[in-house]
């Protein structure tokens, strides 16, 4: 009996083996992966649901809005750009699994705007797009390490790094709040350690430092942070976390009647998202707080980019507010379109990266600071302006004028920027 079973098992196994051999003919690749005669596919992992998703889940919609606009205007060299989005819930292991799907199943040409320092890091280690030659464009994280071309050979940063932001913010604090007791809320990972490094460079000492674990932000943990900041006597508090952390912190502080001078980092400072989450009281809480940005204020409709982007977005996603997340998404899509155009009639992953290396610094963009790509640099933007949140809770430059400061992620000085943004190409389409 046992013998009979064994023979059967072997027969079944053999049948399975032969069947799978027959089914597995792999078609030959004529064009680059993800590029067809009519379409180029990009893949993105972002938190669409979960603790950190609020606000950031508008980025894919913004990218698609620009791509649709571009495609309606003829695409790039006759090809439409398409975005495939996967929800990673801001969990690194999910990001790895979803990125694998994008690469192996959806066969995307390049990864675009993956979000979160820990996620991009986990993907780099595990999926290893660097070794496979898959471009990772304009990552939605300001971790300075991603600009290291040796370690991340196919990754392009966009945001000014968190070190740059902390350095510039440090200088601003020194100038405007000398002698005040300082408090800091930061995320306890590479995002936060970058910030700490930047503040240290700027010579800023915090009286109270409150770290939080990524994903732990909630209406239960936030009062604990605030109590610590309050007990430490902080007069100026920097919120250097994700948007949901800012939201919980500001709400808890309002509840505990703690009203220091707030300074919001660019990652967690999107006014629209905060207002949406906190409700009508948000404008009053935000009023007078200080924030940083490298793109024009979302309310600045005199700006040609803000005007065009907000029009495109309003048509594509009616009813959704135009905010910083939307600007980031649409700008990344705009940069991508220019990179694809510069990569030639039949773009390959190699020619795409070469195009950014050689021409990326001259790409048109909404930002008020320059791009710094070159054959040796994967640094995107490099500076910030500071402004105050208005009584309606919108971040606006003081006296209506953008004063920009640029620096690097190393020991470089902080310089008042003289960069003049070139005019937008006609209709906001790649030249």
């Amino acid at each position, binding site marked *: 009996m046992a013998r009979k079973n064994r023979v059967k098992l072997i027969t079944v196994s053999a049948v399975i*083996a032969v069947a799978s051999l027959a089914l597995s003919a792999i078609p030959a690749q004529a064009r680059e992966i993800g590029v067809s005669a009519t379409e180029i596919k990009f893949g993105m992992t972002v938190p669409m649901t979960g603790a950190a998703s609020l606000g950031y889940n508008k980025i894919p919609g913004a990218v698609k809005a620009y791509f649709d606009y571009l495609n309606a205007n003829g695409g790039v060299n006759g090809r439409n750009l398409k975005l495939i989005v996967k929800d990673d819930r801001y969990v*690194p292991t999910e990001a790895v*699994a979803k990125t694998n799907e994008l690469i192996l199943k959806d066969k995307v040409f390049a990864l675009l705007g993956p979000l979160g320092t820990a996620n991009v890091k*986990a993907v780099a280690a595990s999926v290893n797009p660097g070794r496979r030659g898959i471009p990772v464009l304009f990552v939605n994280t300001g971790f300075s390490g991603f600009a290291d071309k040796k370690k991340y050979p196919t990754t392009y940063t966009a945001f000014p790094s968190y070190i740059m932001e902390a350095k510039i913010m440090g200088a601003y604090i020194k100038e405007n709040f000398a002698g005040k007791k300082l408090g800091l809320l930061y995320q*306890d*990972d590479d995002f936060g350690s970058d910030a700490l490094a930047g503040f240290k460079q700027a010579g800023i000492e915090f009286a109270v430092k409150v770290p939080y674990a990524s994903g732990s932000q909630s209406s239960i943990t936030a009062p604990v942070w605030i109590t610590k900041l309050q007990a430490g006597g902080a007069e100026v508090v920097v919120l250097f976390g994700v948007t949901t952390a800012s939201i919980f912190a500001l709400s808890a502080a309002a509840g505990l009647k703690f009203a220091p001078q707030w300074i919001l980092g660019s990652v967690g400072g999107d006014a629209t998202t905060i207002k949406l989450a906190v409700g009508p009281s948000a404008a009053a809480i935000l009023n007078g707080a200080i924030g940083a940005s490298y793109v024009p204020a979302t309310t600045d409709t005199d700006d040609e980019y803000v005007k065009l982007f907000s029009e495109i977005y309003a048509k594509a996603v009616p009813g959704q507010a135009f905010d910083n997340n939307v600007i980031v998404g649409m700008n990344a899509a705009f940069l991508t379109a220019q990179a694809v155009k510069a990569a030639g009639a039949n773009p390959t992953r190699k020619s795409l990266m070469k195009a950014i290396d050689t021409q990326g610094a001259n790409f048109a963009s909404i930002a008020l600071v320059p791009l710094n790509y070159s054959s040796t640099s994967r640094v995107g933007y490099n500076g910030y302006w500071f402004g105050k949140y208005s009584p309606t809770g919108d971040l606006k430059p003081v006296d209506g004028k953008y004063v920009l400061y640029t620096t690097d992620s190393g020991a470089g000085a902080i310089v008042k920027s003289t960069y003049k943004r070139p005019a937008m190409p006609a209709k906001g389409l790649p030249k």
Partner: protein
Amino acid sequence: MHKVKSSSHLLTFIFFGFILFLISNRVDELRVYQGVQISMYVIGISSLILLTGYSGQVSLGHGALLAIGGYSAAVAKNIYHIPTPLTFVVAVLITALAGAILGVAAARLSGPYLAGTTLTLAIAIPSIANQFKVLGGEQGLLFDVGFPPLSLGENFTQYKWYFWIGALCALISTWFVKNILGSRYGRTWRAIRSNDVAAELSGIGIARSKILAFTISAGVAGLAGALLAMSISTVSPSAFPLALSFSLLTGAVLSGISTLGGVIIGSVILVAIPELADAVANRIGSSEAVITNLPGFMVSALLILTVLLAPNGPVEQMRAHKAHKNHKIE
């Protein structure tokens, strides 16, 4: 007689391994990557079958044991710089040790109390990593087994390398579990599961046997944990969510909790579900919230359906059906 049987098992496993090897050279990379996950599940589920199906100890928190295995391997590699192949051995040994300690506690508990305790562990253990800097907090630790050896050729992909390692581990561990379940220990565990009073009366040391089952099951789970860590190159608390424990349990129920024969079925289903869910969600064009939650819903639905329609798992059910038919003919 016994010896002959296990050596013939060995031949079957070697043959099966050869087939896996042939397949790995022919299918595309996505399937190879899924093969890595399947091998991880095969090991995890067989560990759960040994513990729950044979020795009758319910574990709702097997993910915690996988976490211990994954972290042991990563710590062994990153901090003690132990050669990669040995990190898997370390993972097995340390998790087995942890299992032995847990087993001592578990032997005093049964039914819902044991289920509750293991459930707590599944929640508590991964988050311990947040408390110690050396374990890397929420970001976790890297666990990189390295590139495939150059001698395998330039086109040999990373995932194929993972698959070879995973498949080899799965074959060895399944062979080991199969043999131990067929041995005196396996019979002892079944005796305890069926009727512990009767087992004790026939001279079986119940506590000792239960602890042994927990230890061995944990060791096997540790191996699965190390493989999971290998497949994503990292260990972090978020890699071992409660959902992992439930998936393993579902896989075990789908496989047929009291037989090892269906373990591959349960594993393949677990890996196929997210892909199926994706296909369904794309077809009906649903929202992100639906897409994210659909796999969990499908796993739960399958679990309930299996319990209702084939409580002993499809393989056992088929066997029973066949036995019934044979009986009729006679």
